[in-house]
């Protein structure tokens, strides 16, 4: 009998149950000696078991002629040194015999020739402890727990990124979700679940979308994992999957007994490959080599340790291959974990690769001009981003683990506000190349591409269908978040470089452009078409999709929305629409969302701001139909409950029948998503949801001279992602036109790191963002006012300078 962690817990709690089970088993089998093999690291279990054994002997339950039955049985405790492999039964026996814990081949099986060559039966602590219960309550009772093939209960050591960790006992067949969310209380810190590793270090890693899997032997095996030692590690979005696989494999590599070649050397080579991938030295072939090695180890290893050791690698490749490829191809670790790739989590997470630590550090000493220059090295919209970026950088900021993340966005705004114009002096503009590029769309993607292409000496024309440039920055984002003069000024910088913007110019044929003298075209038309709910009455007057609503308001139309406005959706657009509605005179604005605030895609601070302005939120409701009566709309909703987790790691909403209720409104805004308008006229390969298909690395669409990027390729995303696409398009197009694609520049000198003020290590909170105090809802004045220069410098000194970490 063997005891790992949960076995130790059983022995600490009910040692007599274990002893009783062993006595019954021994009586049935005719065994005279029993052993409990337990790691010496569990002294409490050892002590309690020894006490229980002494008590059992005193009562005559152990020893000679037990209770006059002429049956003799004695139990000894063997303390092991904690080798993982000693959980393997033949290694366990070798260890009890006093030999090195190394497995041997079977046959002979322990039942034929076990300890010292004697027939031996080996079972887990939990199994033995179950015997008295089964004898007492009957086999049918036990078989009634669990599934058809996996009977009884499973015990898991639930740990990792989960609110309640500890030992969990559930009937076989319970879903992972019930364990992680029901018992474990879900993921703390508003993070998303990414995967669950079951079965300990040699188990498999199952993605969030498989959380509805019932936990039993067969199902786990099918999914590539095992029940194993009963470990269950929950990981969230901040865990790098390659790093995770490396971690588990390092463990099995070290715990391999060293006997057989595949386990001893195969795990070593696999770990080496994973090390290289996490250092950015991986090759794409490495993934196939990992799989090939993994299969060889599984097939050829002597015991189950080797036979399962590759599981974490094989399953993470099976379910998270793209993360491996990102590490290899882009040297990108989306969790910002791999030290060899990640200089600082913030800059690594920034889609445009802005050197965040550097500009923050410059801001911390009040050098806003240099700080702005650093931002400008990568993006042409510091002031815009300083106000509306969804700042993924802050979600990975290490300071966030102390109190709050550094306000990286707020510092960008400060740099843009106080940085002046000295950055422009160092801007590099190449001599004219005589090449012409057409950019379709003047959103962040198109304008960024135009900015960089113009600096590379190409003649750029930007065609914009709308009457004003800026794309979603103008048509989507309300002025109270992004004042128009701020946007206009940054667009003017791009025009100043010679890029010409033609508004009200819709392009219907790429061929016409190419024939008309353009050498390359960048399609960045965005995603401007609102999605429909697909419910009855959706086309009634007074129902409007969010994109159209915001577009019309943002182009200056004075829409009458009536008294009560309801917005369906949970994204930033829904928040913007509700806040806009209040400014248009609505007395009530209410957002209805099918899940809860935790799952809402909208940024937390945006939700807070909306709530502060009086926007109401109704969670866990789904629209069923829209009716109209006497000119008023009525939206019928159905209440939801949270169900299983979907592919994005968020819990699904599941409607509860019979919970319908109506809410009345004058305007109903549908903000459940948007997609690109039909681009069929452009004749490009179509992707999912009306998008254009391009080569992921170069953004080149079929057709040589045509490139595409931004929302029209990815579906609705963010300003910073569109800017990143614009940068990539500029690089690819410059190369296509004969340039070297080098669009980076150094606008600020590298700092003298020896001059840095000391690190602020103590607790230090983020200063509050000053905001408009009065007249918030009267018009579209900007709400957030930005940090003052001193506050910004103070905030910047909260940076922990991850990029300077030397280890």
């Amino acid at each position, binding site marked *: 009998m063997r005891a790992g962690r949960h076995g130790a817990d059983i022995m600490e709690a009910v040692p007599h149950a274990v002893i009783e089970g062993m006595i019954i088993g021994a009586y049935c089998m005719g065994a005279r000696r029993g052993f409990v093999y337990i790691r010496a690291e569990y002294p409490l279990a050892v002590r309690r078991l020894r006490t229980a054994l002494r008590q059992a002997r005193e009562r005559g339950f152990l020893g000679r002629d037990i209770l006059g039955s002429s049956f003799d049985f004695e139990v000894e405790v063997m303390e092991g040194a904690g*080798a993982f*492999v000693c959980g393997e039964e033949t290694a366990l026996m070798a260890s009890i015999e006093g030999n*090195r814990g*190394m497995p*041997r*081949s079977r*046959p002979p099986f322990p039942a034929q020739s076990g300890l010292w060559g004697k027939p031996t039966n080996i079972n887990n602590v939990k199994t033995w402890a179950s015997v008295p219960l089964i004898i007492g309550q009957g086999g049918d009772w036990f078989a009634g727990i669990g599934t058809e093939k996996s009977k009884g209960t499973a015990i898991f050591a639930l740990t990792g990124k989960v609110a309640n960790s500890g030992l969990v006992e559930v009937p076989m067949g319970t879903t992972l979700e019930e364990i992680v969310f029901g018992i474990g209380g879900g993921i703390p810190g508003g993070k998303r679940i990414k995967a669950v590793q079951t079965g300990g270090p040699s188990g498999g890693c199952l993605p969030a979308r498989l959380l509805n899997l019932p936990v039993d032997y067969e199902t786990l095996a099918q999914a590539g994992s095992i029940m194993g030692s009963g470990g269950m590690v929950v990981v969230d979005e901040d865990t790098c999957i390659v790093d995770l696989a490396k971690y588990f494999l390092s463990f099995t*590599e*070290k*715990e*391999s*007994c*060293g*006997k*057989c*070649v*595949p386990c*001893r*050397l*195969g*795990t*070593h*080579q696999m770990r*080496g490959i994973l090390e290289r991938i996490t250092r950015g030295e991986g090759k794409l072939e490495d993934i196939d080599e990992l799989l*090939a*090695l993994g299969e*060889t180890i599984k*097939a*050829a*290893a*002597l015991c189950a340790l080797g036979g399962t050791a590759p599981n974490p690698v094989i399953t993470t490749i099976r379910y998270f291959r793209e993360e491996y490829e990102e590490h290899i191809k882009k040297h990108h670790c989306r969790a910002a974990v791999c030290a060899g790739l990640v200089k600082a989590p913030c800059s690594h997470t920034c889609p445009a690769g802005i050197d965040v630590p550097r500009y923050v550090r410059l801001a911390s000493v009040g050098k806003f001009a240099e700080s702005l220059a650093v931002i400008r090295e990568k993006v042409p919209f510091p002031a815009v981003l300083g106000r509306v970026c969804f700042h993924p950088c802050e979600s990975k900021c290490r300071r966030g683990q102390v109190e709050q993340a550094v306000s990286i966005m707020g510092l960008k705004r400060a740099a843009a506000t106080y940085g002046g114009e000295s950055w422009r002096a160092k801007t590099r503009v190449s001599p004219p190349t005589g090449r012409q590029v057409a950019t379709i769309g003047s959103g962040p993607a198109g304008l960024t591409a135009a900015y960089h292409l113009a600096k590379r000496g190409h003649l750029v024309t930007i065609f914009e269908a709308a009457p004003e440039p800026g794309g979603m920055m103008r048509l989507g984002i309300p002025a109270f978040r992004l004042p128009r003069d701020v946007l206009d000024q940054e667009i003017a910088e791009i025009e100043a470089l010679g890029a010409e913007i033609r508004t009200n110019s819709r392009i219907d044929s790429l061929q016409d452009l190419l024939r008309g003298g353009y050498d390359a075209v960048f399609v960045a038309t965005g995603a401007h078409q609102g999605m429909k709910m697909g419910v009855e009455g959706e086309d009634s007057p007074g129902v409007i999709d969010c994109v159209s609503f915001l577009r019309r308001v943002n182009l200056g139309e004075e829409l009458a929305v009536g008294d009560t406005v309801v917005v369906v959706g949970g994204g930033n657009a829904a928040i913007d629409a509700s806040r806009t509605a209040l400014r248009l005179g609505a007395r009530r604005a209410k957002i209805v969302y099918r899940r809860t605030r935790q799952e809402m895609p909208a940024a937390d601070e945006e939700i807070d701001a909306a709530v502060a302005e009086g926007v109401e939120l109704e969670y866990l409701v789904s629209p069923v139909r829209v009716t109209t009566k006497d000119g008023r709309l009525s939206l019928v909703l159905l209440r939801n409950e949270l169900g299983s987790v979907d592919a994005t790691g968020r819990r699904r909403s599941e409607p509860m029948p019979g919970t319908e209720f109506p809410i009345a409104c004058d305007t109903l805004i549908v903000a459940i998503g948007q997609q690109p308008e039909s681009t069929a006229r452009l004749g490009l390969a179509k992707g999912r949801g009306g998008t254009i298909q391009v080569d992921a690395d170069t953004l080149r669409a079929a057709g040589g001279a045509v490139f595409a990027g931004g929302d029209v390729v990815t579906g609705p995303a963010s300003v910073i992602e569109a800017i990143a696409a614009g940068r990539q398009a500029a690089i690819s197009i410059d190369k296509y036109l004969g340039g070297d694609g080098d669009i980076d520049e150094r606008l600020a000198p590298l700092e003298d790191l020896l001059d840095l003020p000391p690190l602020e290590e103590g607790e230090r909170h983020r200063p509050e963002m000053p905001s408009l105090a009065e007249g918030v809802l009267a018009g579209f004045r900007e709400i957030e006012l930005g940090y003052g220069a001193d506050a910004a410098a103070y905030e910047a000194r909260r940076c922990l300078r991850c990029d300077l970490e030397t280890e």
Partner: protein
Amino acid sequence: MSTINLTIDGRAIEARQGMTVLEAALAAGIYIPNLCADPDLRPFGACRLCIVEVEGIRGLPASCTVPAGDGMVVRTDSPLLETTRRTLVSLLLADHADDCLACAKNNRCSLQTAAAYVGVRERRFPKATRVLPVDDSNPFFTYDMNKCILCGKCVRVCDEVQGVGAISFVNRGYDTKIGTLMDRPIISSLCESCGQCEAKCPVGAITAKNYQQPSRKVKTVCSYCGVGCGLLLHVRGSKVIAAEGDRESPVNRGSLCVKGRFGYEYVNHRDRLTRPLIRRDGVLQEASWDEALELVATKLAEHRGKFAALASAKCTNEDNYVLQKFTRGVMATNNVDHCARI
């Protein structure tokens, strides 16, 4: 002993009950690559090169640990077995110092044979960068862990055959190596320097010092003691350069002790007597065999009845019998004794 019938690669094979599949195959002239199997040692199953496919058995069992069974159907060669073996050999080669041409085991190395058989043609895994210490402390042989494949033959022969247990596997995982108690030099361990480990080592990890390949081998019996171990003396020109235990000798079945294996140098020693010497005028002088025997016979005759014989346990029983018979019958005395009379 009963025989069983099994099929290996489509051929009907007869094997003795109790043989492993590997033994049955090798006996039938079918090579299955193997590194850790040894007819003198218990099955171990570490190198996994001898994996086969057996109908009715899951996975790829190691043929060295699977008992041959009547009616068993075995495949020693399939695409899966080939790629698996090639991977295993590649893994071993990545961690093996490659100086084959300069290695003492060159041309008699099981790893070379296996690599040649499975056809490893290129370096698949990066060469290991670690350098393990070489234990040169024993006067007769050298331990070089940089060439060790951890087949465990040395450990097992020391334990199972010699009953000494001077060496064992130490550490775990990739750091596993062969070592002594507290990892001290081999000379400071329980080691009796019998060299059985060196004889069993299939690669260049344990090699006799100054080993040279012989031009011929001469079958003989060890002259050190009364056990009568069979020897194959390795001879180069007219010089004995090594001794090997004779596996065909029923006395030692290939085993040797330190003297038999490494104590051969006296054969070539310049102090060794090759002609009889007679002391004349206080000085030992060369003599003919006839002169010498004549002198011994004369002296023995002079001492009849005033004589004692001291025999040795290291002589054969036959020699000792003859000595006591001679002493009693010819020398007319019962004064016979023996050094091992405890």
